[in-house]
């Protein structure tokens, strides 16, 4: 045990003097977490709100056929109407996102209660915000249509309310956790797991392939220190750095939420999404066996490499091992699998972290994830120790 801490202490000293580790372990998580999670979310809501209330420009051709409709549109302060013969050109030149083409004799036909030709809404639907604008124009057109209906009813002496026998209202039962979580629960687990891998990466390479490259591995193995203890000390150093990365990432996330409260559910009464301290601690607990497993895996794999560069080549594919299960969890909405699914390595961790951020994590599932990933970590550890006893791995030339 003592040797393990001696090795750990030396590796920590060595790694903390290395600028690369500091980037991966401290600055990366602290800066990137808020940047990648809160910024896009904030931008998206802001953009959405902007499209909801901003003045939009509508290009109209054939306006002369519908003076009443034109007056109705112009009376809306959030709509700017441009009359033009060539609406398509305006759209293509991106002068406007939505265009209307009004058929001939539109209002004349309406007045005679004849079915007029179609009003066509033109838009390039590959544009990001076009759907919001289109919806607003359509709502306006529907309102105008209702006005026409009301007029016709009035002429016939019929009460308009006959056409709307009842109204509907909305009430959102989702908790703020679920509302904010819907988006964040997809992003955060991947980041937490990714930091588990990336945080300890440089240290893992440094204490294995790095020792080979500097030719220090052989002197180390020539001492009377037991190899299991030496590997354990190295693994402990890797875990320390990756846990530090995860902790700092989580902490910076908490701080970011405090500074920029995340308001979600803009239409049905905004609520503020936060991550509680308790959730944060459970996230760390769930991340512990992941860090252990990645640490062992990184050491076992990097030990095989002859140089720092070669080790980096081996580690890159490991990142896909993290990202792919995270993608899978993201792509299946409302995915609520059975208990055994939580035992799948990494995937299960992803699920439980998602549940934690949603506030729906079950104790049993949490237990399954902890127990199973502890088992995988143990397998990784055995693998790493075994690698450390193989001459052809240690002194590969």
């Amino acid at each position, binding site marked *: 045990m*003592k*040797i393990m801490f*001696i*090795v750990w202490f*030396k590796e920590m*000293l*060595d790694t903390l*003097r*290395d600028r690369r580790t500091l980037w991966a372990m401290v600055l990366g998580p602290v800066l990137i977490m808020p940047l990648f999670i809160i910024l896009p979310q904030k931008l998206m809501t802001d953009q959405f709100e902007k499209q909801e209330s901003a003045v939009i420009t509508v290009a109209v051709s054939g306006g002369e056929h519908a003076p009443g409709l034109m007056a109705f549109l112009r009376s809306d302060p959030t709509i700017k109407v441009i009359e033009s013969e060539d609406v398509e050109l305006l759209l293509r030149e991106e002068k406007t996102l939505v265009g209307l083409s009004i058929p001939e004799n539109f209002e004349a036909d309406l007045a005679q209660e004849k079915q007029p030709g179609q009003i066509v809404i033109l838009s390039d639907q590959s544009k990001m915000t076009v759907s919001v604008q289109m919806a607003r124009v359509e709502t306006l057109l529907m309102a105008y249509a209702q006005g026409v209906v009301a007029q016709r009813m009035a002429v016939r002496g019929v009460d308009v309310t006959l056409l709307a026998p009842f109204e509907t209202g909305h009430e959102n039962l989702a908790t703020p956790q679920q509302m904010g979580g819907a988006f964040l629960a997809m992003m955060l687990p991947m980041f937490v797991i990714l930091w588990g891998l990336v945080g300890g990466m440089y240290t893992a390479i440094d204490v294995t392939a790095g*020792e080979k490259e*500097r*030719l*220090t*591995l*052989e*002197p*180390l*193995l*020539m*001492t*009377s*220190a*037991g190899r299991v203890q030496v590997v354990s000390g190295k693994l402990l150093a890797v875990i320390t750095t990756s846990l530090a990365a995860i902790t700092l990432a989580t902490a910076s996330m908490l701080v970011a939420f405090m500074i920029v409260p995340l308001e979600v559910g803009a239409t049905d009464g905004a609520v503020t999404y936060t991550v509680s301290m308790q959730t944060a601690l459970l996230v760390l607990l769930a991340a512990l066996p992941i860090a252990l497993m990645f640490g062992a895996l990184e050491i076992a794999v990097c030990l095989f490499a002859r140089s720092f560069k070669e080790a980096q080549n081996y580690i890159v594919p490991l990142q896909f091992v993290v990202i792919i299960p995270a993608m899978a969890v993201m792509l299946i909405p409302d995915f609520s699998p059975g208990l055994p699914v939580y035992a799948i390595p990494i995937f299960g961790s992803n699920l439980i972290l998602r549940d934690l951020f949603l506030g729906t994590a079950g104790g049993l599932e949490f237990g399954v994830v902890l127990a199973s990933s502890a088992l995988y970590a143990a397998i990784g550890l055995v693998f790493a120790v075994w690698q450390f006893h193989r*001459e052809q791995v*240690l*002194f590969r030339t």
Partner: protein
Amino acid sequence: MIEVDNLAKHFGTVHAVKSVSFEARDGEVTGLLGPNGAGKTTTLRMLATVLRPTSGRAVVDGHDLLGAPEKVRAAIGVLPENWGLYGRLTAREHLRYFGRLYGMDETSLEQRITELISLLEMGEYADRRCDPFSKGMKQKVALGRALIHNPNTMLLDEPTAGLDVMSVRGIRDLIRRFRDEGRCVLFSTHILDEAERLCDRIAIIHRGQIVAAGAPQELRRQTGQATLEEAFVQLVGVDAEEMKP
């Protein structure tokens, strides 16, 4: 004391060491002399327990190489051919780390570190990081690392290779000093002159086998040659060309 008995090491089909037997006694300097690629480093690495022999056995200070490798490791101090250092640690931190790995207690370790820093004349740079050190400075740190636990047996792989004249002298003085202290010193070299000057005994290794062993004068007598150089040419053949300094 090192007793090597028919030690062999094969890497796949390459027989790096075919069969090596020799003896290195306490209070003597034993040279493992041979051309490049003869199997010197492989032999030393087996004795340092980092490579597992394919066959044969060796006993170091009474401990069997295969049976009690951890006891062998505690008994020996090794200066590898390519002494690697941790660039971000200081010379003192190197000595401290390795001393702790050998299980030394803190008081005697600090005392030993002070001793070695003065013995190896490292005082000026003991607390500087090793990365920018010159070859000679790095070698001293590596030597200090090998000596930290005060081993009775020293394995030195080409200890003077690539060093300047003063550093070479320093190393040779140290080797004599270890001998006078009664330690067993085994070092490898491909330089004839160095072997003749330093060694009480020489084991000549060629193509993975010991071709002759004994005191320099014995070797001359065995081969009937007037100089050690001629004795080598006879034993090793054309490969001896590269063994001149």
